[in-house]
């Protein structure tokens, strides 16, 4: 579905990524882990086109999308849930969802999308008229994911969806992601600081440090690596 080759980028003169290679299989949940400042968010922003790649190649569905702007990628079925949710706090839940169906293609299917989203997240239906800013942290994260779904994506990138959430809510979010894959056939690329959660949820994991992929593999294999256990799990 997605293939990133030797991706390099950064901010003005500061290089952050030094040749990232990532591959995301169709209908998989692929996770990216790594310490703060490793370049996880930068990787996602570069894939989405929010940040211009300096060099390297991004292939999506067999097409070269390296230099495409975000709105063209949304039209191709890509979207992203930003770190910190970025909801429209002053708008109602419903208005937030409607804004998510902005693209021409998504607008036609809006009613249908709303139905899907409400059946996935019944709580959002209940809170339809409530302002997004007044929802709890977990509900806000659900809304952020739901809004992304309104664009009718085939591929979603999520940047730290478990940030600031209680452990039980983190589990709910992870269950939701699995549901998205199973019920809607959506491919997911997930950046997580919560190591246990992302090892449990993912089919394949990349570990990034200092802007490079240092190891990758199936979570069951990575969890046994001594370096991973020591660095991320403290055991």
């Amino acid at each position: 579905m997605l293939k990133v080759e030797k991706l390099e980028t950064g901010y003005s003169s500061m290089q952050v990524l030094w040749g990232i290679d990532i591959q995301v299989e169709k209908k998989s949940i692929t996770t990216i882990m790594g310490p703060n400042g490793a370049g996880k968010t930068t990787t996602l922003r570069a894939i989405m086109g929010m940040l211009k790649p300096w060099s390297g190649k991004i292939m999506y569905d067999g097409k070269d999308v390296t230099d495409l702007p975000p709105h063209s990628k949304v039209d191709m079925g890509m979207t992203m849930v930003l770190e910190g949710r970025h909801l429209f706090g002053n708008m109602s839940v419903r208005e937030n969802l409607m804004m998510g169906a902005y693209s021409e293609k998504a607008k036609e299917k809006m009613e249908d999308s709303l139905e899907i989203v409400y059946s996935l997240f019944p709580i959002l239906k209940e809170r339809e008229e409530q302002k997004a800013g007044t929802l709890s942290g977990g509900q806000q994260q659900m809304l952020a994911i739901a809004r992304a779904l309104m664009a009718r994506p085939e591929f979603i990138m999520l940047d730290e969806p478990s940030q600031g959430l209680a452990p039980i809510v983190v589990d709910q979010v992870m269950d939701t992601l699995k549901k998205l894959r199973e019920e809607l056939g959506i491919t997911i690329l997930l950046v997580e600081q919560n190591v246990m959660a992302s090892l449990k949820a993912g089919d394949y994991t990349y570990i990034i440090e200092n802007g490079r992929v240092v190891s990758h593999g199936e979570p069951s294999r990575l969890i046994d690596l001594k370096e991973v256990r020591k660095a991320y799990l403290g055991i």
Partner: protein
Amino acid sequence: MRRYVRPMIPVIILYLTLLLVGLSSESRWQPVAFIMFYIALGQALNMFLGMTGYVDFGYVAFLALGSYGMALAFSSFSSLGLWVILLGFVLAIIMSSLLSLAVGAIALRLRGAYFAIATIGVNEGFRYLVEGVRLWGGSEGIIISSTMKDIFGSDLSNYISTFVADIMVFVIGFIAAFLTVYIINSRIGYALMAVREDEDAARVMGVFATKYKIMAFAMSAIFAGLIGASAWTLKLTYVFPEDVFNITYTVEAIAIVMLGGAGTLTGPIMGGLIYGFLRYYLSTVLPGFQLLVVAPLLVLIVTIFPEGVMGYVKRKVRNTRFEKYII
């Protein structure tokens, strides 16, 4: 259709009232025209500041280019007769929109305060360019009063600069209001609202943010140019660079939009009304001290209504039957 008509009702009432008050006696026309200038100015800037949340400190440059457009029509194409005014407005549109596209293509890549700072430079830079290379008459400006008299005769010239120019500002403001309603109800409006609330979120939803920002910027600039062409050149019959590039107008326009409620339709109208009224009458009651009084009054109003006067009203009428009329 109703979603376009209903919000226009308060606008039409306000405009008609103002027009009737102005026409009711000769002494009232001048204050009404003065207030009308600020209303139109607020509406023009609101299309950009209100819709995108970006603050342009070089905004007056668009009024300036518009006023030069009209002046150049008179100084270079006086043989056209009455059509020269139309040509003047066309030139005003072309010049102000070209500048906005040039500035927008570069400066709209910057966000927040960086954009604001970059735009101050545009205005000052353009003014020194005009004065320095003696473009368009340099610091002596362009005086069109004698050309106007040659073309129209002195009675008609007088009528144009004391009445028609003011009416034109009225019309420009009204068209701006209508366009604002249209934008707010359209996809462009939704896109701009998303950009204003959260630009990154807008982009991942598929909004081509830069395109819509430049569109709003150019539209706002065109209306500024039209206002400059009519409220300055046609009315005053001269253009001096130190007058038309005066940053005070930018600051006043920002104050009006914030005061009335950025991004609302009626906000800049109310803001222009309050601001213009205060400035005009305080300058007759307390000559020389008007700005000293206006400033704390503005601070007071903005403290009481942080979303602007009409922003406050809009919130109050939410979920009532007036909701559809106040946008």
